[in-house]
């Protein structure tokens, strides 16, 4: 051997791994540390791209678990509108490591949740998930009670899951100057009132992001030492920036820091892995083909390719190990005795139909035409 590059596999060389290939044939982008099987309970949280993960896992028969599914009998439309089933918990989007740290602190430690609520036209919005309740809650008490449900779901989810998938979204956020509590969105946008005296913009730097993620890991592992964490970075650019930078450079700044934090954690922690969905969507090798014309929204084809890569790379790394069969989830209590999830009741069985006919015949006989 004359030098170390001589014996490297072809995926370490740009020409053979990227330039000479069709973008969709680029393979082996992920060298997973951890095997994820259909038996493992998986929870997802983070920015909006995380919801695609959940759907793809469910579609492939993986054990993604919704720890806050809402009351029984919700239609898909209601689940969507009320943000049930989007993530494993009804937190809405968690964009920053600090927001995740806050949720976990409230869920897993005695730290009380802030009393602050945003009132608008007699309705009440949760500053930490203002979008989950269309039109807002009826009262502050209802809001707080609902939030307690979410915190309980987080507690249970972290204890029972084996894999926590978190999509890192942003470094920019808004917080209360005095309490340093961070909001999900800038006050005054979805709800609330912006007060320049009280609210301040923060663009977290690398050290702060890393410190928050380390705290997150510590909190998680305190309740579940076996929990594995799979990080991704959202490829969705910032809608707007409050920094003094162009939104494009602000996006690159934000995503680069998050990506660097992910790598640092992967290098330092055996139970933390990173899946490169961000690279697949954003890298010039893919010629932007996975973005919608607004160059922001990710097309379904992009999500499909990301998830195909996920499953292929898992198989490539662990293919020698036979997959464990899926574990059956205990069925949800189904109170939809007659109507099911379909608002229109299902077809009746022959016996049921006969019973129904008997009722009518008994009523209208002997003169069937006596109505």
């Amino acid at each position, binding site marked *: 051997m004359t030098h170390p590059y001589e014996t490297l596999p072809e995926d370490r060389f740009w020409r053979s791994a990227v330039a000479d290939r069709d973008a969709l044939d680029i393979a082996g982008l992920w060298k997973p540390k951890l095997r994820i099987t259909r038996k493992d309970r998986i929870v997802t949280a983070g920015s909006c791209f995380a919801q695609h993960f959940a759907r793809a896992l469910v579609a492939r028969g993986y054990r993604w678990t919704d720890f*806050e599914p*809402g*009351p*029984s*009998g*919700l*239609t898909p*439309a*209601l689940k969507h*509108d*009320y943000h049930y089933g989007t993530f494993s918990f009804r937190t809405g989007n968690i964009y920053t490591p600090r927001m995740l740290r806050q949720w976990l602190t409230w869920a897993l430690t005695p730290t009380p949740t802030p009393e602050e609520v945003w009132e608008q036209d007699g309705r009440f919005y949760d500053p930490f998930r203002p979008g989950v*309740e*269309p*039109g*807002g*809650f*009826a009262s502050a008490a*209802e809001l707080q*009670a*609902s939030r*307690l*449900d979410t915190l309980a779901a987080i507690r249970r989810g972290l204890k029972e899951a084996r894999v926590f998938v978190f999509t890192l979204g942003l470094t920019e956020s808004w917080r209360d100057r005095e309490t340093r509590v961070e909001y999900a969105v800038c006050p005054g946008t979805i709800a609330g009132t912006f007060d320049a005296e009280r609210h301040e913009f923060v663009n977290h730097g690398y050290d702060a992001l890393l410190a928050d993620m380390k705290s997150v890991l510590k909190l998680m592992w305190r309740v579940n030492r076996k929990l594995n964490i799979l990080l991704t970075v959202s490829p969705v650019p910032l809608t707007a920036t409050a920094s003094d930078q162009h939104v494009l450079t602000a996006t690159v700044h934000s995503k680069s820091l998050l990506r660097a934090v992910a790598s640092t954690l992967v290098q330092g922690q055996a139970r933390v892995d990173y899946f490169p969905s961000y690279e697949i969507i954003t890298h010039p090798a893919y010629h932007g083909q996975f973005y919608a014309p607004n160059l922001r929204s990710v097309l379904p084809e992009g999500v499909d390719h990301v998830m195909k890569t996920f499953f292929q790379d898992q198989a490539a790394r662990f293919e020698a190990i036979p997959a464990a069969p899926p574990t059956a989830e205990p069925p949800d*209590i189904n*109170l*939809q*005795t*007659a*109507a099911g999830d379909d*608002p*229109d*009741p299902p*077809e*009746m069985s022959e016996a049921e*139909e006969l*019973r*129904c*006919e008997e*009722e*009518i015949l*008994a*009523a*209208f006989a002997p003169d*069937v*035409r*006596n*109505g």
Partner: protein
Amino acid sequence: MADALPRVCIFGDSHYACLKQAQVRGLADLSGLDLEYWGHVGTRFRHLAFRDKAIHPTDDFTARRFAKFNAKGRLFLPATDFDAILVMGARVYVAPTILSLLHAQSHGPVVSAGLRHRMLADRMRGQMGYRLAAGLAASGPRVLLAPVSFPTEGVVPKPVLATAKVAASDPQLLAEYWALLTAIAAEDGITLLPQPADTVTAGCFTRADFAVAGHVARKDYEHKNPAYGAAVLAQALPILRQVSRGP
């Protein structure tokens, strides 16, 4: 004389049989109404469509089945032929949503007022029978709707039993849900008839007194007897009698 009476139709699935039985047995006085029945088993409701101010079967077989039990042999039901229509059962189920809400009340999760309203509204409006009733109401006649009753007591899956305890301990909950349903129906021009209170037991079941004969042996916890029909008619008749005959 009949020309002066309000024209009333009782339209429904097999649940409407108990109304007819109540009439035949003299448990309800339906005098003063120019009355017709038009209905058939729930399975056939998937073969009904509302268009041109009328309910039309979408195939000949279904049309003949409905006509069989109508005095005039009607193959379809024109809303404008009636001053009032009582929709009975018609595969409109509210009990599953009510049970779900009661279960959440006792076991969680917290269901916000907004979600309670949407659950009840979406479920009810999503059902074919309800949409037929709304179509009738939008076409002129006064429309009353008596949804399918609670299951008869005795058929008690464990989670429902726990739910029933909650319902029974706080009758205000059930009253709230019926009030919401009534308001939602009113938005669609429908007068909703909540299940008569004296037929209800344990919050969300129908008393066995109102079950069809031999319901246990027949495993029929859904259909009700003439006494139940009379109870529904007792709610409906005062309203129907106020309706004037149209031109």
